[in-house]
């Protein structure tokens, strides 16, 4: 390998991951993108979507949501190409907007991971309780066990190997699609108005169903955090596209089957996939879908915990979160964020169960709204960076950027708003209120606490450790804190 010429900040890695001993291949990139999106909560979101559309036309809403997800794919593709790094979201947002706003949005977005992990643990727990015919109170115990296992394995530095993830994701998607098709085939009745989404329903309902449909694709973009480990940087971009297509096919078939075969009680239960399995293969189908639901948690917990805890760690190391969050255990795992995520997820899951067991619909609405929000932010960043970083290398460029970025901001903004005030086909502002509270708390923290944390960090460095690097003859080197403060000021000015 030869050393290439200078590569400025912000460009792609000089050597790339191509020559690495262990690099992520295309197949694993696809399974990561698809697996992160296909959580256990997906089954509930798909069943919830049926309530908004007429007959068996839910697939149309999922298709429209898929087209919009492809719009988001374009935005993330361009941004990921510009910043092929796990810290991309911090990089492009801080270039496109005020760093405090970027941090506030990022912190709010991070809560989606807690919500999804919590909801997944609850869904798997509820499915196990149902299938084992044990008291519903045991759902919390299952949830605790599942989250405990996830936290424990994370603390031990266990990461699901790429090939295991490939197999797990393939099993989940294939089994879900096959069960749905078999259940439909065995129903013996034709589909009702599969091409009439507006029959006896309003246009508003259709918009709400599309907003919820966005959630079915959510987190497909999390694979961008693997940009530093893929064999070919283009893998991420292509993998996301393929993931959206796969998700459309599986979710469309599943939702159509659920809408066609399940009654209201089954659709509003926390485990609609189990009766679907029963319609396909009887009791064996119930167990099959229970096993598949548990496997979805493998991807969610593995991806969710690692992505969120490492991000929190890096942000704490940067000085934007308390330094305690950067503490490592003997396996170099940031144990405080991992435990905190586990505890937070468990608390959310218990609240959902205690409040009534159907509050997961609020989580779905919040997830959909936050996802739409981040897509709108991505559209904004793409547009803003075309002006601010016009010369930056872009392996992929969104065509007609002005039109598509503005369209993305407007459409995703509206869909986010619609999703945040709509729970189970009725007006309910609770998701919006929770999001606003979380956003306000993040903003307050960023404006009030972060500057103090950063100042304390600089003081700590100055007090505990003078600059160690020897001065070159004839030069007077400044102390580390001075340089850091200067960087801070420059950053503030910029």
């Amino acid at each position, binding site marked *: 390998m030869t*050393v290439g010429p200078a590569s400025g900040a912000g460009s792609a*890695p*000089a050597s790339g991951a191509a020559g690495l001993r262990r690099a992520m291949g295309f197949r694993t990139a696809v399974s990561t993108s698809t697996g992160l999106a296909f959580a256990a909560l997906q089954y509930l979101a798909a069943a919830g979507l049926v309530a908004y559309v007429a007959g068996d036309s839910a697939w149309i809403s999922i298709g429209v949501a898929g087209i919009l997800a492809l719009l988001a794919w374009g935005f993330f593709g361009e941004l990921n190409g510009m910043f092929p*790094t796990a810290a991309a979201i911090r990089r492009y947002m801080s270039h496109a907007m005020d760093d405090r706003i970027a941090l506030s949005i990022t912190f709010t977005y991070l809560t989606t991971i807690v919500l999804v992990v919590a909801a997944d643990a609850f869904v798997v727990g509820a499915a196990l309780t149902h299938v084992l015919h044990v008291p519903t109170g045991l759902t919390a115990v299952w949830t605790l066990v599942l989250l405990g296992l996830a936290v424990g394995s994370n603390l031990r530095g266990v990461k699901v190997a790429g090939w295991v993830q490939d197999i797990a994701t393939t099993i989940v998607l294939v089994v879900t699609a096959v069960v749905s098709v078999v259940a439909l085939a065995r129903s013996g009745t034709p589909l009702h108005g599969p091409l009439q989404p507006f029959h006896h329903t309003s246009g508003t309902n259709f918009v709400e169903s599309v907003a919820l449909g966005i959630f079915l694709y959510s987190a497909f973009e999390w694979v961008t955090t693997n940009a530093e480990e893929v064999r070919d940087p283009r893998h991420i971009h292509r993998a996301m596209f393929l993931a959206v297509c796969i998700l459309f096919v599986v979710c469309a078939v599943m939702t159509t089957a659920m809408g066609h075969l399940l009654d209201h009680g089954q659709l509003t239960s926390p485990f609609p996939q189990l009766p679907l399995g029963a319609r396909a293969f009887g009791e064996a189908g119930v167990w099959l879908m229970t096993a598949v639901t548990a496997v979805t948690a493998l991807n969610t917990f593995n991806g969710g915990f690692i992505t969120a805890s490492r991000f929190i760690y*890096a942000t704490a190391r940067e000085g934007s979160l308390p330094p305690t969050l*950067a503490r490592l255990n003997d396996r170099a795992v940031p144990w405080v964020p991992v435990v905190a995520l586990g505890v937070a997820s468990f608390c959310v899951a218990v609240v959902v169960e205690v409040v009534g067991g159907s509050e997961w619909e609020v989580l779905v609405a919040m997830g959909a709204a936050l996802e739409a929000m981040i897509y709108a932010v991505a559209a904004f960043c793409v547009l803003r960076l075309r002006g601010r970083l016009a010369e930056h290398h872009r392996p992929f460029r969104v065509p007609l950027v002005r039109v598509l970025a503005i369209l993305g901001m407007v459409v995703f903004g509206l869909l986010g708003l619609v999703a945040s005030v709509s729970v189970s086909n009725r007006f309910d502002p609770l998701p919006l209120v929770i999001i606003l509270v979380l956003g306000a708390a993040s903003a307050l923290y960023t404006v009030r606490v972060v500057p103090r944390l950063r100042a304390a960090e600089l003081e700590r460095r100055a007090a505990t450790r003078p600059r160690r*690097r020897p001065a070159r003859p004839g030069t007077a080197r400044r102390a580390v804190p001075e340089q850091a403060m200067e960087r801070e000021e420059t950053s503030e000015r910029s």
Partner: protein
Amino acid sequence: MATGQELIEAYTDWQVRCNGNQRLGKMLRGWDRTVHLVASDTGEGFTLSVAGSVLGDLQVGLAGQPDLVVTATSEDFADLFWGDLNPSEKYLSGDIVLAGSSEDVMRLDAMSMVAFLDQ
């Protein structure tokens, strides 16, 4: 711009510090890796390897197949090895560019953090 000699001097100090840290010894257990360092301003390449929880000498040039590739300016490398620079901060700002798995990146960052801050 730091010279190759300055980098080796800085690395040697870091190496002694890392190898003398018991906690880091535990953290690096089972983590045998080859890391390529590429100085973006001078074009120089270096190789460091970890085997048996011990950080080896810095080799000039890029040797073997790497597990991790770190690209930064020679000044940043020198500051990093002297412990005068927060690599996470530089990474988030894009001044340090990495290629490799997130676990390997975490271990490398842990080396600088534990060696100097003992967290």
